[in-house]
């Protein structure tokens, strides 16, 4: 068992600075999903990779101290249920499932296109949490011998 888990000091220092930039970039891509290429899935993958970056550079224990894993694990189905709730709200307010009922503003604005923005954010959260949970479980599988699925 190494006394110093993770990678060298240079990697740790650069990661400490750059991970916030990566998360910011991921949020930018999620929020501008209706104006430029990207959207929920691509931004979610970028945010999950930011967490994976921290896990690679610092080791398993630091990531469990930084983010509470139970919260991450619970956020994913909550986001899924919220997506379906917005869809059902579309039935009530707009007549059909996933109808667009929020106001569509002017073109090229950030708040245009109704509920596509909200759905992008929800998908971004769900993909980020889901992908990070999968990668974390695959990485720590050897530590819990005979671990969970």
């Amino acid at each position: 068992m190494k006394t110093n888990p993770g990678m060298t000091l240079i990697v740790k220092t650069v990661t400490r600075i750059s991970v916030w930039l990566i998360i910011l970039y991921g949020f930018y891509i999620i929020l501008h999903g209706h104006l430029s290429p990207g959207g929920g899935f691509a931004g979610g993958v970028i945010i999950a990779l930011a967490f994976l970056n921290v896990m690679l550079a610092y080791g398993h224990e630091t990531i469990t101290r930084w983010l509470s894993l139970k919260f991450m694990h619970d956020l994913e189905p909550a986001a899924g249920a919220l997506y379906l709730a917005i869809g059902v709200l579309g039935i009530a307010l707009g007549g059909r499932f996933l109808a667009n009922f929020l106001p569509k503003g002017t073109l090229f604005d950030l708040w245009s296109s109704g509920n596509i923005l909200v759905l992008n954010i929800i998908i971004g959260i769900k993909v980020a949490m889901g992908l990070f949970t999968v990668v974390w479980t695959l990485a720590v599988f050897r530590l819990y011998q005979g671990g969970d699925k």
Partner: protein
Amino acid sequence: MIVYLLCFALFLVGIYGLITKRDLIKIIIASGIVGYATNLMLILFAYRKGAHYPILEKGKMVTSQMMVDPLPQALVLTSIVIELGITAMLVALAIRLYEKHQTFDITKIRRLSG
């Protein structure tokens, strides 16, 4: 025409890897290559000669006849997500198989037959 043939060649490379390789990880990588070839073919079908990228920008008004078809690009996004899920599941199964059989060689993981 050449582009379509190259895309088909990529598909055949993936199928060759799936059929002949004996290592589990190489089979997973080959199934990834098959997925890439399929996505590439979907995007290649969406090209129009001399057209513009399908994003509306301020100040430049382009009609839909001058844009590349954006619908297959949405199909490819969905397909990439699905293949990500399949690859994650295959990798998890490969890890569990290694834990049970201590090898990645598929000629030795043959408890089910007949």
